């Protein structure tokens, strides 16, 4: 599937084996400075927030302190305090971790459900496909935001897990459709037909033969979904349907800016979170774009 580089040296060294996916990706990313910086940034920030938060005392950070309300950034509070006297820097670290966790969890879970659903639907086709797609259509027409808000209101305990599950329940359809359409093409190809003729089980063809051939599509879609999912959590929290303030997230920090006084006079509470959301989403997107190019020979730069 990959075109070999016409560079003379490459031809001499290795004319039969096509370069691996990882090396194509690596080459693609080094050619795009923006993507490279984004990747480094992502790795650093992820390592940082997950690392640091091991040493932070969450109880201490969300503890209301009446005597240090609305402190401006200082040596004691690097990013000042909010209206409950809580350290914004600590909340930012834990908030970023929570938001990232949700983004990753939702992406993984929607990915798994979507892939399996799409594979089964596309591979079997016919009536099975028809029925499964109608069920999917049903989920698609649900007013996503309303239903999520209703669910958020009725779950008894609200944690990163329940939140992720609720989101997953309404976000797996896109990837399922994508995989299905790809599998519909893929199963008509000779290798799949041959395998079938040789008596391979459906399971084996689906998961061991067709699936690896749609991997690049999956990786790209999931990376781009990740960016969207981080934003989704922030958006819901901003609207007031996200986490309680005792579970900081980027969205709750941002939602403090709904107060005109905070927006105007106390930038340190919401600007860092806003900038971080922006950078995270941009960085994930940049990496995703590089991946996309790596997966599609026509768009490749190198």
């Amino acid at each position: 599937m990959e075109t070999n580089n016409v560079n003379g040296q490459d031809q001499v060294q290795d004319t039969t084996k096509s370069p691996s996916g990882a090396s194509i990706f690596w080459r693609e990313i080094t050619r795009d400075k923006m993507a490279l910086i984004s990747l480094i940034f992502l790795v650093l920030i992820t390592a940082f927030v997950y690392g640091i938060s091991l040493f932070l005392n969450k109880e201490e950070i969300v503890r209301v302190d009446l005597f240090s309300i609305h402190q401006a950034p200082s040596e004691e509070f690097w990013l000042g305090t909010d209206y409950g006297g809580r350290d914004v820097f600590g909340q930012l670290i834990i908030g970023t971790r929570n938001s990232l966790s949700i983004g990753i969890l939702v992406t993984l879970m929607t990915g798994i459900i979507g892939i399996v659903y799409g594979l089964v639907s596309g591979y079997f086709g016919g009536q099975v496909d028809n029925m499964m797609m109608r069920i999917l259509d049903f989920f698609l027409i649900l007013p996503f935001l309303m239903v999520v808000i209703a669910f958020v209101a009725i779950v008894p305990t609200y944690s990163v897990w329940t939140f992720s599950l609720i989101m997953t329940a309404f976000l797996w359809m896109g990837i399922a459709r994508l995989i299905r359409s790809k599998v519909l093409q893929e199963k008509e190809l000779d290798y799949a037909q041959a395998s079938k003729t040789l008596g391979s089980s459906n399971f084996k063809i689906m998961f061991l033969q067709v699936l690896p051939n749609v991997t690049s599509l999956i990786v790209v879609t999931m990376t781009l979904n990740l960016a969207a999912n981080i934003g989704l959590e922030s958006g819901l929290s901003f609207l007031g349907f996200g986490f309680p303030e005792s579970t900081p997230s980027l969205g709750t920090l941002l939602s403090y800016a709904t107060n005109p006084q905070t927006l105007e006079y106390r930038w340190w509470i919401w600007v860092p979170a806003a900038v971080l959301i922006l950078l995270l989403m941009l960085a994930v997107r940049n990496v995703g774009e590089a991946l996309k190019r790596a997966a599609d020979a026509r768009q490749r730069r190198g």
Partner: protein
Amino acid sequence: MKKISFSKALFALMLILLLALAACSGGSDDEGSDDSGSDDTGTEEGTDEGSDEGAEDEGGDEEPAEEDDGLYSVEDFAPSKTNEGEAIEGGTLNFGLVSSSAFEGTLNWNFYAGAPDAEILAWFDESLLGNDEKYRYNNDGAATYEISDDNRTYTFTIKDNVNWHDGEPVTAEDWAYSYEVIGHPEYTGVRYGSDFTNIEGMEAYHNGEADSISGIEIVDEKTLKITFIKATPSLLTGSIWPYAMPKHVFQDIPVAEMQESAAVRENPIGMGPFKVETITPGESVTYVKNEDYWQGEPKLDGVTLKVINPNTVVQALETGEVDMVDSFPTDQYPDNAEMSNVEFLGMTDLYYAYIGFKLGSWDAEAGEVATDDSMKMSDVNLRRAMWYAVDNNAVAENFYNGLRWAADTLIAPSHPEFRDESIEAPTYDPEEAKKILDEAGYEDTDGDGMRENPEGEELVINYAAMEGGDVAEPLANYYMQAWEAVGLNVQLLDGRLQEFNAFYDRVGRTGEDDPAVDIYQGAWGVGFDVDPRGLYGRDAMFNFSRYSSEENDQLLEDGVSEEAFDVEYRQQVYSDWQQLMVDEVPVFPTLYSAVLAPVNNRVQNYSIAVDWNAPHEISVTAEEPVVAE
């Protein structure tokens, strides 16, 4: 590289979007309750109505020296505007109605339900009875009254020069008519209640058994006589309906259709200092002066009233878009105390916030509270210890900059006549709290740092608090921390704050108390009438704590008995009652509150005092509002 510049453009775009997103308000409007005017039962309030937030900009640059502790006090504010300069002839006043939603536009005292509509009404229609600073009706209004010896019959005389905006005189028949409409079986509004059933013959009329109300007699064109079943001092503090209704306008409209009629919605008339000129539904109302006003011709040419979003109040005041607003969000005060073009008026609000303990449930069949001695919070020592454990002074100073202050009794400082300052209520003393708990047998027996109940069982107290208002969340957390500090394990109900309506439903507004709630944090907007039966009586649905005792019943009954016409006796009764509440702690008050009203410097003769009734005297010193420097 083209790609990079695209990313940069995207970055800039998203930054703008984010800022715009942050600027769009999610403005917390928790004015969920209807203000039912003279209703003496009080109104449910968000714990944080007006979204008050303690906010002191430490990094602020221009703090005046005398306020360097960042604290304010209601004492710093006068209720009346100081006058500077010469008034001009005429002029138009711009009044801002602070609300995050459109007003309903039910513009008749007999039918309105929302507080915004009441603000609009007040400009063009008024009570026939004036009241003094103790909220008692006096003879300074458009009508005077005399009371019979047995205190049951009131004879009202409407002054001769009181006319409707269309020139027709306001008659005794008009006043009686508003009673007939409210008592009518087909009446669609919310006014009909105990104030009206206390009139002789009202229930028979309401049930359709009589064509007229036997207790209401039209003596002559301007004289009305009303006889009540039970004489109580509450009659004079709002239990008499003081609004007339122009019968010549409404008589051809069926009662069931009145609320939706043009006479209420489109071209309402009243007897107040200004006439309604135009109404833009939900947005604004313009008034012109009523030259025939009974107190004299107004000095202003007119008034323009418009709805202002709470998030843009400051800007609207600074630019002079409005001269004044009905209520200013006090959390925005510290950052704007220096606004140069307005004077802030202030006074004590008819309000207290409190923590309530569930002591029973509502018995719907008997229509009264069923106090249960075996509830989790039934031990008075536990309740008192929880009062000692919280530092309301610190809460008031740090969250509210002193614009709220620590409360001690259940009669707010808005009623100084009946409030007993000498009562000693618990104040912050965690050691005392621990001592009380130790002595009452609440000890940590399993070594987890949290106290168990005297039977040695784990004690987890479920705490219901409502969302809305900016400090709701940290405030609830603070209280839980304070209780944890004395060893009590208090958990937020469902782990989160409750939405306003859900909160009051679960606490028991409909009588179906959620047994999961052990304690709750609520607030009351109290009525003019000091009588607390509507909130703490045995038969009061709003008695959310479901507390009852013989002594409480007796004191509350004494407070509205005939002897209570003697003010000293009534003071003693309510003093005893306040003491009883401090001893029994069915609820404990946490904060009292101030109300603030900024007024443009060009406005004269304006006041927010309760006994102020001279809207015709308002004048301005310039054609245009003063703009902030």
